[in-house]
């Protein structure tokens, strides 16, 4: 055992005055074997074979090739569903973001004194957060039927659960001084939160809101597949008909929209922080 240990230990460093320093063993000694074992286990679990990648890799491009040239004339048909998708994401994100403020207040360590209330709110939020977006859509489809409204509500609830968690972590770590000062002047805790804590956090709040919005646009594009309205319906339909040049046009519009919104959001977030 000692011999094995010695093999992995780095060589001692000898100083000019004769003192010897033994550097600590690198954690890579056990991290690398663990990673290797995990890698081989997961390739067999997921059925990955290098041979497939080499032999059939070109198949990946088969459909992409069929997409050229894109049917640019199809733009007139893509335009309206794309706007629906955008509106669905905007309204859904804003609604979820609005409700996340009171929920984050009730979940935060430093705002709520009652441990029971905090526990109940946090537990409900955790359970809600575990529901995948697609399942949310299917649940709301039963209530509101197919269409953009279902997509909006699903994105709203999804954003609400994520933003609540992100935001209460911000509240937990903010400067409590202004809150204490305003509370000592006789204001209620809610008022002290709103005037003492929120002004510190608006920038970060808008930033996580934009982050969620970016995510929601990409999500919204898929939601049409399960009947939630927007560009996803069109994409599903054209793929079904193998109308690849039209699919290409849909994807182009989608990519361009996502790119523009992400750039804008990145620009705004940079200015905020």
């Amino acid at each position, binding site marked *: 055992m000692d011999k094995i240990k010695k093999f992995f230990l780095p060589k001692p460093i000898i100083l000019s005055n004769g003192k010897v320093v033994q550097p600590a063993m690198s954690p890579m000694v056990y991290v690398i074997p663990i990673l290797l074992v995990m890698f081989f286990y997961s390739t067999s679990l997921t059925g990955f074979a290098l041979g497939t990648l080499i032999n059939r890799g070109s198949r990946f491009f088969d459909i992409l090739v069929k997409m050229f040239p894109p049917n640019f004339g199809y733009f007139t048909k893509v335009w309206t569903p794309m706007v629906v998708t955008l509106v669905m994401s905007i309204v859904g994100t804003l609604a979820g973001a609005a409700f996340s403020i009171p929920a984050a207040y009730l979940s935060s360590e430093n705002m709520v004194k009652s441990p029971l209330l905090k526990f109940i709110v946090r537990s409900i939020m955790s359970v809600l957060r575990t529901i995948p977006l697609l399942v949310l859509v299917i649940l709301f489809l039963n209530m509101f039927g197919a269409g953009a409204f279902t997509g909006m509500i699903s994105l709203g609830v999804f954003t609400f659960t994520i933003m609540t968690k992100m935001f209460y972590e911000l509240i937990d770590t903010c*400067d409590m*001084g*202004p809150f*204490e*000062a*305003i*509370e*000592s*002047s*006789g*204001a*209620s805790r*809610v*008022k*002290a939160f*709103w*005037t*003492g804590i929120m*002004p*510190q956090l*608006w*920038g970060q709040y808008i930033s996580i809101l934009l982050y969620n919005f970016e995510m929601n646009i990409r999500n919204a594009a898929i939601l049409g597949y399960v009947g939630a309205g927007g560009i996803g319906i069109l994409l599903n339909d054209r793929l079904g008909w193998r109308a690849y040049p039209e699919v290409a046009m849909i994807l182009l519009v989608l990519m361009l929209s996502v790119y523009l919104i992400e750039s804008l959001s990145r620009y705004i977030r940079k200015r905020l922080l």
Partner: protein
Amino acid sequence: MIKFEGVVKTYPNGVQALKGVDLSIEQGEFVCIIGLSGAGKSTLLRSINQMHQITGGKLTVDDVDVSTLKGKELRRFRRNIGMVFQSFNLVKRTTVIKNVLAARVADMPLWKSLLGLYAKQDKIIALEALDQVGILEKAYSRADQLSGGQQQRVALARTVAQQPKIILADEPVASLDPVTSQQVMSDFVKINKTLNITVIANMHHVDIALKYANRIIGVKEGKIVFDGPSLKVTNDILKEIYGRELSDDDLMGA
């Protein structure tokens, strides 16, 4: 009038911060509390506005037993007591005027405070408070662009805008340089005199306390060991409060 009768404060962890304090302070006095860190100065101050609840004895402010106050009554009571802190406790990312206006939200309906709809009268009160501490021209600057002394003045203006009868100041100049400290203390004196507001300040620097206060209270291990006019504070008394002679390091050169 503030009256302590055998006030005791024991923290949940068992530390006894106040061990039977008797004290009365008249309206309009300027009192400085001195003592070592951990002697109970902060607890004494914060028990007056019930930011810390006392656990024994009786504490009355204008004949109201403060330890019985709860919820709405407690908040209404606190409106008469302003507080200034060592670290200023301003919202640094917002404007000076908004920081001062924060003192007005206690009196506003909730929906108005949520929408930030301050009445014109409130804005005038806030601006006049800023004028009183001499930084009216900074009203629309962001708080984090101000120096430490200016920030403490904003905090003082916020307290004045609350129109309190009493101001509690917890180490108000401990994070300021000597010159700025003197200026801020002069503002306290001015507000004490012109508005007849009682000022009770915890002080770290003995010489500044002696210079500005009319009355000194010495606290040691949760008990009051000296209470009298600042002129009567001798070296022996300071030795008793601090447990040793004061060196130049303990003074600020006031």
